[in-house]
Every structure is written in structure tokens, then in C-alpha cells.
């Protein structure tokens, strides 16, 4: 039973994204998201397993024998924090898990642990600091997690902490935490539901991407695919540049991607040089199906593809991501149309992928 709709974003998908974004799953404890993923995919897959690392590995076979094995990866974990020391009276020291810049932490409200105990990341109040102190960025050394004087016993060392952001939308703007990479997870679930019949779809909902692409290593070794596509969420740093002086040359040349310009196709990032055959194929698929797309600026950052393409004897790989502003902070923003077009591009790319695409020498 396969649905082959046009893959427009519907109410069901939006509610699923909401559930996923509001869930807590910091790298290494992806339990809550894994449960939602398993519940969502079980009705329509051929094989499902959870590996040693906690990756959810799902197979949906196509129609026929010797079909191309395509691995799609989206990571279940989000960046967050972890409690490290109990200082008593509800105050705790903590560390970041994954790449969160420490200067955005003060004054953020958070949920702690599996029971989502409310807390706040405190810094000294303004009237107790000097002017000199206020000018310096606050270091991790001076930040504390505060869950209130009587609630310290609810919190254990090692508990994970997430920003307490609730999902919301406004027209085409989607505001949530952890769009990186719950949006990839949502897309992957939808692609499994509408799986193309010309390939064997091997889906990996990976763990611990944010701390070093760790789940992807074992997932790729196990699935041993012919090609791989990582579906992630990538920064859109598309604010205007405010250069001093020269208006003629004032321009943001380091935007990475732009919101509203479509799915971001990677040519290269810090961890992977996409297989040029796959880049050409998806660019053609976008043009043939009238789907807007943009090239993600070659540069920093990595996706699960960096780990996947080097496993075993190597796997030609590519990443295709949804752009979002303010990733790795309490609130990111993405565009519903970019979400939809990313889903469509990957789908149309998969249904049209020639079985002999790798026969052309790279």
C-alpha cells in the first residue's frame, strides 16, 4: 500500500514535526524521538531494527530484484546540555552537548531530564554586576542551571537539558527548536510512506550526529548501501551585511544558504565532497520537475554523509538539506515551502534515478 501523492506538506506532517521538535532528545539519549519514529514507521516498512548505538534502521524494498540500495539518513539527536555538578539548593553546573555557542545561553529557559523539569540558565542579575563585567561575554564557568531551591532532588548528574521552546507557525514560517534535524526525520518518515518502487530504501534514523556523526558510522556499516543521501538542516545566515563605509561592495558573501530559495544541495562541505554524478542527477531532477533549489555554499559544517561515504569500501554520497536560520539556538526558523520542496526534490530524484547511474565513471 503506497501513496504516491505530490508530497505536499499536510496537517499530519505538521503535527508530526511539532511532536518531534517538542520532544527532548539530546545526543546520546534519543529515546523520546526514537519512540515516535518507531511508532510512525512500523505500519509501512518491511524490516525495522534498532542497533547497538540506538539508530533506527528501516528497510522498505522496491518491486523487483537487484534494485539499487539507497540509504537515507536523518539524525534524531539535537544539541543541548548535560548536568555535570550539583552545587546544592537547586543550582547545577552543566556542559554543552554539540556545538552551542556559549554566548547565547544566559537567561534561557530549559527543560531538564526525561520529566522535563523546568529550569533557567542564570547569570548574575544586571544590578549586581559592574559595567566592565557586563561587556565581557559570560563564560561557561559563570553560568548555572537553576531549577528552583526545592527541586534539586528531581535532577541527576548526566540528565540532559533542552531549550524549552514550543513549536509554532506563522504563515509559511515555522518556529521551533531542533529543526536540525527533526525536519529531516519528518521528511524521511514521509519518504518511507511514499517509498519509490524502483529502489530498496534503507532508512537510518541516526543518533549522536551532533557530537561527531557517530551513529552514522555503524548504521552505514550495517546497511552497506550503493548510494547515500543525508537529509539535514543547514544554517541560513542570510542577513544583510552591514559593512562600515563602502556601499558599493557591501554584501553578505558567506550566507551558506538563503531562506525561501529551496532545498540546499551540497557540492562539498567540511566532511564530504558529494559524488558529482549525484549532484548532476538531483540538479536535473529539480529542473525537470520545476522545483527550486540552491547550492549550499561549499565551506564548513558536516552531515552524516561524511561518516557514511567512508565506511567499508566507500559509498557515493550527497547531502540535501532544509535551510533554517539560528540553528543550534533555542529557536530556529524555516520556510514551509523549502520543507516541501526538499521532500519533493528527494522524492523525484529517487523515482528517476537510473539503475546504472554509477556505471558512468565518476
Amino acid at each position, binding site marked *: 500500500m503506497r501513496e504516491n501523492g505530490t508530497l505536499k506538506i499536510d496537517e499530519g506532517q505538521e503535527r508530526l514535526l511539532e511532536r518531534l521538535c517538542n520532544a527532548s532528545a539530546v545526543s546520546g539519549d534519543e529515546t523520546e524521538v526514537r519512540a515516535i519514529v518507531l511508532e510512525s514507521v512500523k505500519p509501512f516498512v518491511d524490516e525495522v531494527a534498532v542497533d547497538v548505538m540506538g539508530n533506527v534502521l528501516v528497510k522498505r524494498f522496491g518491486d523487483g530484484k537487484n534494485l539499487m540500495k539507497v540509504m537515507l539518513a536523518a539524525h534524531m539527536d539535537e544539541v543541548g546540555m548535560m548536568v555535570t555538578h550539583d552545587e546544592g539548593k537547586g543550582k547545577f553546573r552543566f556542559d554543552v552537548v554539540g556545538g552551542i555557542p556559549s554566548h547565547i545561553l544566559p537567561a534561557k529557559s530549559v527543560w531538564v531530564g526525561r520529566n522535563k523539569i523546568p529550569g533557567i540558565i542564570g547569570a548574575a542579575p544586571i544590578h549586581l554586576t559592574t559595567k566592565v563585567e557586563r561587556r565581557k561575554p559570560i563564560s561557561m564557568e559563570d553560568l548555572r542551571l537553576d531549577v528552583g531551591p526545592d527541586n534539586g532532588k528531581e535532577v541527576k548528574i548526566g540528565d540532559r537539558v533542552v531549550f524549552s521552546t514550543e513549536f509554532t507557525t506563522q504563515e509559511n514560517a515555522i518556529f521551533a527548536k531542533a529543526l536540525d534535524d527533526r525536519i529531516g526525520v519528518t521528511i524521511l518518515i514521509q519518504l518511507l510512506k511514499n517509498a519509490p518502487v524502483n529502489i530498496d530504501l534503507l532508512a537510518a534514523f541516526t543518533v549522536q550526529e551532533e557530537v561527531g556523526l557517530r551513529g552514522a558510522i555503524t548504521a552505514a556499516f550495517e546497511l552497506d548501501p550503493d548510494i547515500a543521501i543525508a537529509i539535514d538542516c543547514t544554517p541560513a545566515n542570510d542577513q544583510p551585511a552591514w559593512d562600515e563605509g563602502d556601499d558599493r561592495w557591501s*554584501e553578505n558573501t558567506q550566507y551558506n544558504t538563503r531562506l525561501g530559495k529551496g532545498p540546499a544541495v551540497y557540492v*562539498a562541505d567540511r566532511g564530504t*565532497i558529494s559524488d558529482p554524478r549525484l*549532484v548532476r542527477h538531483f540538479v536535473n531532477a529539480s529542473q525537470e520537475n520545476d522545483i527550486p533549489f540552491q547550492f549550499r555554499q*561549499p565551506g564548513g559544517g558536516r552531515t552524516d554523509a561524511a561518516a557514511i561515504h*567512508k565506511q*567499508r*569500501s566507500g559509498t557515493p554520497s550527497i547531502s540535501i538539506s532544509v535551510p533554517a536560520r539560528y540553528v543550534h539556538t533555542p529557536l530556529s526558523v524555516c520556510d514551509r515551502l523549502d520543507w516541501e520542496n526538499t521532500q519533493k526534490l528527494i522524492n523525484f530524484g529517487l523515482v528517476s534515478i537510473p539503475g546504472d547511474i554509477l556505471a558512468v565513471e565518476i
Partner: protein
Amino acid sequence: MKNLICSLCEVPGPSGFETRIRKLIKSEVESYADEIRTDNLGNLIVRKGKTGPESKRIMIAAHMDEIGFMVTHIDKGGYVRFMPIGGVNASACIGSRVRMLDGLPGLIHAERKLNGDKPLTFENMFIDLGYEDQRDNPVQVGDVAVYDYHPIDLGDRLVSKALDDRIGVAVLVETLRMIKEDDINLSNDIYFVFTVQEEVGLRGAAPAAFGIKPDLGIAVDVTRTGDTPKALRMSVDLGKGPAVKVRDQRLIADPRVVSWMVSVAEKSEIPYQLEVLESGSTDAGVIQLVQTGVPAGCLSIPCRYLHTPSEMVDLRDVKNAVRLMIELLTQPVSLV
């Protein structure tokens, strides 16, 4: 061999885009190979030798890719912004000549420094392709370019871009040629692997080794020298022979492999140097950790001015490297 080296250096092949250089290498070695194939990531694998229970599987690796540039943005003035592919030396870029893979020539320059103390970064640089209206240029984000210079023949010494590691490639090609032409009988099974994407993180070599499962792995790559004015301390000199690598940033060479390489060199009276590289790595570092582990080492070609458009080697070191490689592959492998 000079002609071979020059043609190898002139073909563009930045990491991830090795198609053309692979094609040239393939045409050079096809007739010498027992088996030849290209793997999933584009590594070119040439097998030559004897299979069987007595023979050891030896992987010799030289990387096909060179450093280069990838377009990140065409700015509103039409100037081409880029990021480096691999460890490009930033100061060597200013005023350098480059060529896009599709043939368009240009040069690199930079914004003037507003605050004098800020170091030169790739974000401030751009490629100028010389269009009257720069916005007419056909370049797109993701396009790639390499340095564009012909080699300079200085007699015993050669200057070129991409000697890292086309000189290693040349050593492998020449070794294969001599094995064929002198009808040398190999008692082991040798895999000559021309790897991809070394410059961006040693990416091609481990997947290649995973498929081959070698008993021994030797990379052939360039290494720095310490013999130029106020150079970083380094005991390797140009012209004093190929170097047997003891250690680099990703590899502590298997001591048995080092002893074996040294004893073969001494027995065959081939000049050699011992190399400790404080900063830098080669394919050997990742080959060593494949599957359940591979004894690994590296034969280095001394080279000045690495990762600039004007790298320099001494051809006598190169010839001695070929001689040493042939001895290593034809004498019994004894790792004790």
C-alpha cells in the same frame, strides 16, 4: 621520466574531481596491469603480481588529487569567491594564476586590508576572470579551479604545481613500467592504488584498503625539507635521497616496516634519509587502521615549498625512490 612527471602535473584534478587525471594514469598503466578497476569513490586500483597462499598482498598508494579552489559565491560585482580545497597556502595565492576545470583562466587577488593587523583569509580573496562586465562570467557555485602553471625544468631539479602528489603517482607508474619492461618476476601480489581525496582528509585510501585487505601498506607521498633559509626544523634535505618515514601526525610507521625499508636501501646501496614530520599526514595513517589493522609505512619524496604553485623536487631523489620501490617489491618482505 621528466616528460611523464610534467604531463601528470599539468592535468587538473582537485580533490573530488579526479576524473581527468585518473584517465591519464589509466592510459599510462593499463598495459602493465594484470587487473585494473575503479572503486566506488574513484580510486584507481592496479593489481600486478602473483596471487596464492605464499604471496603477501602489498598495497602501494599515491594520491591523484591536488589542492585547488571551489567557488562559493559570485558576488554582486561578478567577482568569484571561493574556498580552498585542501591545505592551500593563503599567502601563495595572491597574484597567482588559476584555471577553472572547464578551461577559463583567471587570477586570485584580495580585498585591501582595512585593519592592518587582520591576517589574510580566503574570505577576503576572489578570482578575477577578466570579463569587461564581470557579471557575464558563466561560473557557478560549486565549480572548481586549480593553479595554472607549466613546470620549470632546472636540470636535476623540477619546479611545478601538484608535485604533491603527482610525483608519487609518477614513481608508481615508473615502477610498474620497469616491472613490465625488465620482465621482473614478482613473488607477491602488489596493488598499486592511485587514491582520491587525500588532500581533504585522507578519504579515499581507507575505503580502497578495506576492499583490498592488504598485509602491508606503503604510501608514496612528498615530505617537507629543512634546507631553505630559516625553514621550520626538519632533518630531510633535497637531493640526499628518498626518505623513509618514521612518524607523521597520523602515523607512527610500523618499526618493522621502517627497519625493512632501511635494510633494503642499505643492502642495495640506495641513498636514503630518515624522516620525522611534526605536522602533516599521508594515506598511510588511515590505511594502518583499516579492518583489523595493516602494518604501514611511507616512502617520501623530499619537496620544497609544498602547497604553493611552485613545489620543487630533485629528480635524483625520484629515481632513487623508484629503485628502492623495485627492490622493496622484489626482495622478500621480512617484518621482524
